[in-house]
């Protein structure tokens, strides 16, 4: 017989799930509105979504008090709050891109926005828990929504991408469940904090089983974070999604994944487990290097950016390997800087998207942008700015993230890794430069059928403008930002 739960409402600390509750409530509201009328324009839903995101952000920003709550399932500590802020800001910028000039299939359905909010709630659960079960539930909620959102783009390639993502995602799910099961079997708990205590108190008894569990979980997270060699789905999925969604996928799901990785590997990094160290080391090195090489030969910008964002994820992952507070600061700094730059870059692709483009279709080959400086100098300059930032040319935003992260790697005693990271930045410059060369140095391909800026309007330009400004003047706010990150990270003990 199940014991009746006797727990006071105060102890439940219901505030911990307020942010997710706001997102879910928003999603349900949208669905209910859809029941009554179907004449509402997408701009209504976009703004409604933004409103809910803003309330959500408000709840997150004002959250104080006990990090634990809800039967100890929730863990709303500093990095959880910080990553929720990143998720919400990134999502807000992304959903604005739905207000495009051309009309696309997916935005006609209010369900799109409901799914989007469900997904946000999923990510928020994922970062706010240290129970493998709740992480799993959050991960699945988010992933299910993403599969559908991708497929709603309604192109052959989108459906292919969705199915591919779903299949791989299912595999990752199985890995995650299996890994959790093994770890539960060894330690008798699914909470990462307790698990660590058990590991330490028993001096890593049943070591082979622990490693097996670690490998399964690492692979599952590897799929979600698209680390090499689990990255095969990424370029296809990015290619199948709209440019805006691809930009979103390269940022928001990954920060959620990073937080889980941080929590999961914390104990192993702390006790300097050699096996886990080399596992992570190998993952980081191949994830930085291999996609860089593949990106060199891409002919489509979206695929190139897809590979480049895998490589950037590898950069950020190095922080988990190093495991110092400075490195964790570096990870968040890097990702915030990456957020603005990458959203901007994908948004530029998005404004050049045109329905029924006879010559290039849905793709964005380099030739499409040849001689852009002559036809739309501002767009070309801003895209050039984003490319330079991604390449790590100072003083643009990503340089500071890269510098801080490499600095943290050096302070963490991983000098060889720091050199590998530096050399990879050198390789990466080539493919970013390639786009700059096309835009600035090559002549335009004369073709009347190609229409540039076909999808631009004020909202999209505003998003790009915000990203461009954040990228350019990052040097002015980086000190404040680091202070904030440091506050959040140190309060949660990383």
């Amino acid at each position, binding site marked *: 017989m199940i014991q009746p739960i006797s727990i006071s409402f105060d102890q439940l600390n219901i505030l911990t799930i307020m942010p997710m509750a706001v997102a879910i409530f928003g999603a349900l509201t949208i669905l209910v509105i859809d029941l009554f009328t179907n004449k509402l324009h997408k701009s209504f839903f976009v703004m409604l979504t933004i409103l809910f995101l803003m309330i959500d952000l408000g709840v997150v920003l004002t959250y104080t008090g006990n990090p634990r709550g809800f039967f100890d399932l929730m863990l709303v500590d500093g990095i959880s709050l910080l990553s929720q802020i990143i998720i919400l800001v990134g999502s807000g910028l992304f959903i604005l891109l739905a207000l495009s000039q051309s009309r696309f299939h997916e935005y006609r359905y209010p369900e799109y926005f409901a799914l989007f909010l469900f997904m946000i709630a999923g990510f928020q659960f994922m970062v706010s828990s240290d129970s493998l079960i709740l992480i799993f539930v959050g991960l699945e909620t988010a992933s299910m929504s993403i599969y559908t959102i991708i497929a709603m783009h309604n192109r052959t390639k989108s459906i292919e991408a969705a199915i591919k993502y779903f299949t791989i995602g299912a595999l990752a799910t199985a890995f995650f469940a299996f890994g959790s099961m093994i770890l539960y079997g060894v330690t008798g708990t699914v909470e990462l904090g307790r698990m660590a205590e058990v590991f330490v108190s028993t001096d890593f008894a049943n070591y082979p089983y622990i490693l097996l569990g670690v490998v399964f979980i690492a692979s599952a997270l590897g799929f979600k974070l698209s680390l090499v060699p689990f990255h095969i789905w990424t370029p296809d999925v990015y290619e199948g999604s709209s440019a805006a969604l691809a930009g979103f996928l390269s940022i928001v799901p990954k920060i959620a994944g990073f937080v889980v990785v941080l929590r999961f590997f914390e104990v192993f990094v702390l006790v300097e487990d050699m096996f886990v160290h080399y596992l992570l080391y190998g993952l980081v090195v191949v994830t930085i290097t291999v996609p860089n090489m593949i990106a060199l030969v891409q002919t489509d910008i979206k695929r190139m950016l897809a590979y480049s964002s895998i490589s950037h994820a590898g950069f950020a992952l190095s922080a988990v390997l190093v495991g110092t507070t400075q490195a964790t600061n570096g990870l968040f700094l890097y990702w915030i800087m990456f957020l603005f730059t990458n959203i901007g870059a994908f948004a530029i692709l998005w404004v050049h998207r045109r329905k029924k483009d006879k010559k290039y279709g849905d793709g964005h080959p380099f030739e499409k942008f040849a001689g852009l400086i002559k036809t739309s100098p501002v767009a070309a300059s801003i895209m050039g700015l984003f490319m330079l930032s991604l390449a790590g040319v100072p003083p643009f935003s990503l340089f500071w993230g890269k510098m801080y992260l490499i600095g943290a790697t*050096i302070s963490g005693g991983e000098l060889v890794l720091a050199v590998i990271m530096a050399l990879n930045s050198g390789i990466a410059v*080539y493919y970013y430069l390639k786009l700059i060369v096309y835009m600035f140095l090559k002549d335009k391909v004369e073709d009347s059928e190609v229409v540039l800026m076909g999808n631009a309007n004020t909202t999209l330009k505003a998003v790009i403008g915000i990203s461009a400004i954040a990228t350019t003047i990052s040097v002015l706010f980086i000190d404040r930002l680091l202070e904030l990150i440091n506050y959040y990270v140190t309060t949660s003990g990383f």
Partner: protein
Amino acid sequence: MEYILTILIFFPAVAAVMGFVVDKNSIRAYGIMVVVVEFLLSMYMWSMFDISEAGMQFAVLIPIISQYGISYNIGIDGISLFLVIMTTFMTMISIIGLSEKRDIKNLILTLLFLEMTMVGVFLALDAILFYVFWELSLVPMLYIIGAWGGKLRIYASIKFFLYTFTGSLLMLVGMLFMGYIYYQYTGTWSFNILDWDMHVPYNMQLWLFLAFFAGFAIKVPMVPFHTWLPYAHGQAPTIGSAILAAVLLKMGTYGFVRFSLPLFPDAAVAFMIPMAILAVVAIIYTAMVAYAQEDIKQVIAYSSVSHMGVIILGIFAINTEGIGGGLFLMISHGVVSGALFMLVGMLYERTGTKMMSEFGGLAKTMPVFAVIFGIMLMASVGLPLTIGFVGEFLALLGFFVVSPTITILAALTIVLGAIYMLVLYKKTFFGPITKPINETLQDIKGRELFALAPLVFIVIFLGIYPKPILEPVNNSVNQLVQEMYIKAGEPITKAKIAHFNTIGGKTP
């Protein structure tokens, strides 16, 4: 006038941003105005500069990322003073002499941005700030070579960018590591190079020296990292080559003086002979390659590599004469090679070719041009009483104490330089006129003459009376050498530095 240096750095950039509004028919005048004002500002700064003071002047320090010790930290001493003036001067001259017609607005605005980064590199005293300007200078140059260059321009510009960028990243790792060492010693972060006076363990010094070497040697360029240079020069437009040779290459040698020597005195002394050998190889090998070139611009490009070898040799003599000579040679080579590239550009504009075989007998049709070319060429070779002689002599003199053998080999630069340069001169200017097109060439006049006249004046004036430059340079270099002597950790380093500084019976 505390903020004169800040004004000096950002004035061209602000002017460039405002220049977007200026109509493209008036942009030339606007550009010239800006660079003239910038030059006058730098002259004003010189007049305020206290020559007898060896340390940093007009220093400004504003924290940017206080948690990580990065600050906006600038200042100037005798070492950087003339490099800044040379930068503003050469930018001014090359924009006055600019004859490019295509997209002139973009070109001038890009040049103004480039000027900001170049001045910034020479003034930055924070390692990260230095790196920011250092890397940022690549972007305008990439655009200049890639957009206004010759046939292979895109290949050349990408090669230039990739080569220098990759090298500098290793330097960045070195800088971050230095910051970490400082943190270990003091518990606070700082990237201020004046703060970095901790003693770095010998082994670490060697590695850090190599990391910085990767950044600087590619920029100089030193053999065997010089392969990007002939392409960049060959493809770049005239103004690009002039600024590249005059200023950008000097950043590398300046980096050695500003970073490698004072930060790693033991490593610098340990690497003296290897560096000298690389320098001698550069001097002799590239001089021979220069002799084999058909293209006049390539001859000058290779001669640049050769002369940069002499500068490196002087710097790694680690005495006042050598380093001072190296710095003087940086100024003189900047003026002379800039002038030579502009002269070739003028020729190219008239005939559409840079091949020696297409010319001959030009002295008859273009006498003024031939005279100016001759003066510059003599200065490049290092004829006494021209600007080229002073630096070359001092650099070689400085290294003579270290190793007479290497110095004698290096002195071949004068012989070999005379050979390839005089052959070039003979083929181009003397003999009968073989091509009909050369009979009707216009001699230089007006704007071109106006741009070149100051260069000729400087070449001769400083050749006869180099003291205005040498005195402040020597003051600061003396201090640098003393600093190295104090910081040196190994007794043998101390003994060597003391030994090298015995020219003329003085003691350090």
